């Protein structure tokens, strides 16, 4: 599967919209097992992405991904800033080689793992990215893949990120970063569905 420049831009715009519509929901999730700011962090990043895209129309996919990456790195901070920033930065490099979505998402997911010193099963956004990457590879990417991946984080015990301080008590709550990543891939589904 591939996306051209216009559709990729639509993808990002839909992602922005979803995060902005659910900022306080993300804050609430992060209040339960983190520090209550994941929504505000992501919203700040989304505003920066919108600004950056308005300022300069990216001329190719690499530039588009890079614009998103820089906005996240420069305006978000926290854990999610460097994580999303690194994922999109690695995707902007990879897209010069291939536009295959499965490969791009996998590269982004590898970026998350490198930056976060983490892996699947630690109750982080990786637990959404990795299943999505795999489903893209095996051509069964769907809404239920995203939903199941997100919901699976509920029963995990966090071993990375702030939720890890809660140990066993981190069980029973969705991981906030997985929720924002679910928005990202739901946005992708909507673009692909058109």
């Amino acid at each position, binding site marked *: 599967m591939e996306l051209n420049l216009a559709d990729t831009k639509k993808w990002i715009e839909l992602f922005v919209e979803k995060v902005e519509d659910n900022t306080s929901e993300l804050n609430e999730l992060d209040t339960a097992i983190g520090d*209550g700011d994941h929504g505000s962090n992501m919203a700040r990043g989304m505003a920066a992405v919108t600004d950056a895209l308005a300022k300069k129309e990216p001329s190719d996919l690499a530039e588009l991904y890079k614009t998103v990456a820089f906005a996240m790195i420069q305006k*978000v*901070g926290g*854990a999610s800033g460097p*994580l999303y920033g690194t994922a999109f930065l690695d995707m902007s490099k990879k897209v010069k080689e291939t536009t295959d979505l499965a490969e791009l998402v996998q590269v982004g997911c590898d970026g998350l793992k490198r930056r976060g010193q983490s892996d699947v099963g630690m109750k982080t956004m990786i637990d959404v990215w990795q299943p999505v990457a795999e489903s893209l590879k095996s051509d069964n990417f769907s809404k239920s893949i995203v939903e199941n991946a997100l919901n699976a984080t509920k029963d995990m015990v966090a*071993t990375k990120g702030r939720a890890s301080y809660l140990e066993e008590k981190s069980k029973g709550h969705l991981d906030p970063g997985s929720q924002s990543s679910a928005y990202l891939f739901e946005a992708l589904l909507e673009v692909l569905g058109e």
Partner: protein
Amino acid sequence: MKKIINKTEDIVPEMISGLVKANSDLVKQIEGTTAVVRNDSKFAEEKQVGVVSGGGSGHEPLHAGYVGDGMLSAAVAGEVFTSPTPDQIYEAIKAVDQGLGVLLIVKNYSGDVMNFDMAKEMAEADDIKIKSIVVDDDISVENSEFTQGKRGVAGTVLVEKIVGAAARSGMNLDDLAALGQKVIDSTKTVGIALHAATVPAVGHPGFELGDDEIEYGIGIHNERGYSVEKIQPSKELAHELIKKIMSEFSEQTGHYAVLINGMGATPLMEQYIFANDVLNELAADNISVDFSKVGNQVTSLDMQGISLTIMRADDDWIKMLKEPVTTIGW
């Protein structure tokens, strides 16, 4: 939620601007950032390894309040409870490097570690000598190789004080990083909350406690602790925290430094009463406390609560803790 603020999104820049305006002889703002750097005359005159710290806002006077001769060279303020971004940290690093390198003091949170790492990569690309140490003094969280590890909390200010004193005395970057690590390994903290903090963007307290309940082992970002209990007299609270901390030290001989830290909304009156109980119990246990400090040093917005930090200290660390500095908050 009632707070003396303007717009939520302006909290950090306005706070930094107020701090800098009210203390322009000590600090100045690094243009285009919410980082502050020393502005005293000695800063330009005497070369030393730069010491930069930073982190999410809401812990004031940490970190900006500790910028000055003998402590931090610069401090970077992120959004409330959110690590600052790499480019801001990078600007602070450039502002303080005098050719002798820069040490980063990072509190152990995923976000802080990742953003400071990215800033370090940027500085290394500029051939700036740079090292970082990660403070993880909060022993209420179990450590393990496979997890995030312990949090950095109130002990951070003692690390900043000792490292700052050593940097002023001319210590080189490698030794400074080694010293900092040794100090971190000797510093243990546990905190309790009577009432959680309210993050402005969230608008209500991070968790609820009953009218007679306290929570042991909370973090400085409303992270939940290890148990909720009925509130006890100060003496019992002191006993519980001392027991918890002292069991982490393999030896109980030597010299100790003690920090009693208010979480933001706890009056000094209560902090001194608690300090009295802590110092009485340590004295009864023949533990020699050679330095102690009481006050709001590493806060958590309007959290009501207190933390106890105990450091097993080398003789010269005690001297370094006692040296005068020209900061807003020490």
